[in-house]
């Protein structure tokens, strides 16, 4: 939250606008991005490239970026309260999985309803693949423009693995047992290390569900919902997943239990990896792009030499979702327009401008990532090219369901109950079952046991 100055400037501008008709149109943009901090590249891109270019093309526009430095869940809370009261930024970064619940709550409106026909005539839609567009789509309407997608993997500290006698350069586990064996070897070599980080607990929010629970659950051949969209509330896959957590954090102390329970746990997990306490970290490409580049707080010293990655294996070969040997999951982020904006046409002008190829190319130059547009190239980034080529074909998406967010919170609670040692996996699952039934209704759930 370190740079909220623009909000202050915006407030002043708003106050003076009351006194005299203002000539300039003010636009307020928010993202969970801070220059030098989280998603630094996004912040640099908007601040140093998009805004200057946009203001040059539209001299009577005045755009300010609000760099939000809190957690994802805090931004969600803020946006939900903002949008419900007609407040908030005009344009904001938005995680696609939240769209159904916001739309059903009346907090987001289709882009063409907010900004009119200019939306439908935008040429950029054609350049977005159907899969990309779906990231910000709900029930046939588009609520935002997707920026890109991501993939999840298992990051390794090659130096720690080597110390434990593992061939770090060629290490590719093919089962959970392989991972646990490597972790035990590291623990043996360095007794005060916490070799594995598989996110758990409430404090990490969606990062627990996406980077932790899903990655394990998919390896058992299951997902959070079945093919018909019913939430699975009781299954062997859930039990296996929870038992994996129990093995890591309770039975063998292969992971840092405190980091799962304390409020600043995710930063602790990054610090553990940076400091060589953790050797195996389940994270998204975000971790490589945004968390560990040189100069950032959690930069891994000598990253090119010590950081490696592996595909996340299923529990046993072939036991993954759709019979896969390896699994991953993708989310998508983009930008949406606040339906209560005072300047819908201008907000759309900005949103579409930032998604034109010139601006996206500028973004790629700052920080290469997997783009949504097919007409924007990923520049030479071996890491990104390699991971996206290997992992995108294996990927899965979260259910596009307005209740997913609430169920995800229950998943986080379930993992915390197990990781803290408070409940057995069986009891935690029973608790999850009753909580999910209370949210979605019994008819929308299914028990596989």
């Amino acid at each position, binding site marked *: *939250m*370190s*740079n*909220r*100055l623009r*909000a*202050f400037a*915006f*407030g*002043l501008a708003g106050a003076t606008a009351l006194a005299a008709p203002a000539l300039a149109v003010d636009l307020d943009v928010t993202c969970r991005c*801070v*220059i*030098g*901090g*989280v998603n*630094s590249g996004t912040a640099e891109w908007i601040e140093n490239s998009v805004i200057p270019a946009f203001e040059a093309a539209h001299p009577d526009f005045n755009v300010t970026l*609000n760099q939000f*430095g*809190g*957690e994802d869940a805090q931004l969600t809370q*803020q946006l939900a*309260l*903002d949008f*419900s*009261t*007609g*407040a*908030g930024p005009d344009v904001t970064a938005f995680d696609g999985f939240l769209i159904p619940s916001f739309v059903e709550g009346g907090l987001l409106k289709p882009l063409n309803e907010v900004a009119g026909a200019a939306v439908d005539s935008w040429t950029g839609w054609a350049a977005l693949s159907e899969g990309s567009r779906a990231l910000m789509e709900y029930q046939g309407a588009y609520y935002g423009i997707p920026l890109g997608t991501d993939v999840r993997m298992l990051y390794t500290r090659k130096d720690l693995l080597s110390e434990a006698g593992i061939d770090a350069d060629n290490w590719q586990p093919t089962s959970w047992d392989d991972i646990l064996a490597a972790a035990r070897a590291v623990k043996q070599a360095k007794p005060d290390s916490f070799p594995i980080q598989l996110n758990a607990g409430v404090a990490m929010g969606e990062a627990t569900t996406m980077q932790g629970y899903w990655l394990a659950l998919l390896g058992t051949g299951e997902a959070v919902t079945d093919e018909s969209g019913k939430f699975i509330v009781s299954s062997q896959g859930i039990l296996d997943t929870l038992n994996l957590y129990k093995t890591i954090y309770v039975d063998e102390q292969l992971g840092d239990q405190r980091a799962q329970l304390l409020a*600043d746990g995710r*930063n602790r997990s*990054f610090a553990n990896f940076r400091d060589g306490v953790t050797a195996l970290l389940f994270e998204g490409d975000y971790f490589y792009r945004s968390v560990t580049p040189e100069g*950032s*707080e*959690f930069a891994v010293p000598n990253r090119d030499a010590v950081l490696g990655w592996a595909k996340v294996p299923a529990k046993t070969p072939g036991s993954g979702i759709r019979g896969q040997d390896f699994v991953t999951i993708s989310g998508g982020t983009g930008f949406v327009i606040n339906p209560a904006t005072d300047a819908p046409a201008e907000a759309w002008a900005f949103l579409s401008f930032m998604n034109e190829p010139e601006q996206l190319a500028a973004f790629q130059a700052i920080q290469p990532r997997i783009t949504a547009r097919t007409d924007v190239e990923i520049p030479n980034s071996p890491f990104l090219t390699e991971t996206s080529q290997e992992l995108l074909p294996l990927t899965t998406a979260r259910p596009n369901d307005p209740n997913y967010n609430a169920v995800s919170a229950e998943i986080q609670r379930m993992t915390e109950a197990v990781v803290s040692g408070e409940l057995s996996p069986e009891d935690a699952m029973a608790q999850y079952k009753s909580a999910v039934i209370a949210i979605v209704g019994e008819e929308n759930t299914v028990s596989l046991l």
Partner: protein
Amino acid sequence: MGLTIPAFVGRIAFSALAALIGVVFALPLLWFLFAPFNARAELGLAVPDPWTLSNFFTVFGNSYAVQALWNSFIQAIGGVILVGAVATLAAYALSRSSIPGKGAVTYILLLFSSVVSGSAAMVPIFLIISAAGLMDTHLAVILTFAGGLLPTAMFILRDFIDSIPKSYEESAMVAGASPVQAFFDVALPVIRPGIVVIVVWSFVNIWGSFLIPFILLRSDSNMPASVAIYSFYSEAGTPIVTLLAAYSLIYSLPVIALYLFVSWRFGFRFFGGIKA
């Protein structure tokens, strides 16, 4: 008066115990005496070497944080004026008029005010402020606090006014003053100490509050210091303890100053239901 030896030992033991409790109370606060003046402060207790004001300069360079102090000030002063004025009028009416049902109204107000706490009623307060279009304004915070603090303020003040003989105002009215003049020229000066109590009490309550502004304000430009303090976190979200400590100290100063003022001017006597 000579002391026997056991009594003397007893005195010493009492003093030692009181001092020990004082130290225990001081321990968690000690950190705030040192860390703001230490450019390399961490969570641990350390005497600054050298002492420096650089943390304060950095804090004052953060215009959002400075603005937030000003916002706290607007909200606290606004609330204090509203509570002070409205409570004085109402308390005077409760004490000096004979409106039918006065006692019942008093009783019901007192009951409601004890029952409806901020942490119980946050949902409807949010919805009311939202429906009234006051979301994200200083006025929302001021009005909410005024509503919440008023009943208690009214009762403290009514007790003050009740304890003043009616003959003061009566003689003024015999001399030809109107009731309203009697109120402003005679009663008001006499009940001023009571008003000071209300003012200090309301100020401390509003100045220190976190939850109500956190829920009712949306934009950074309106946030008070209690929320802005969370801006002293690094880009990655870890606390920057040097700036946090310095800002906390600045933010605490008005409350400390008020305490010193009250205890100097009135003695920190106990005025009853201070603090909600």
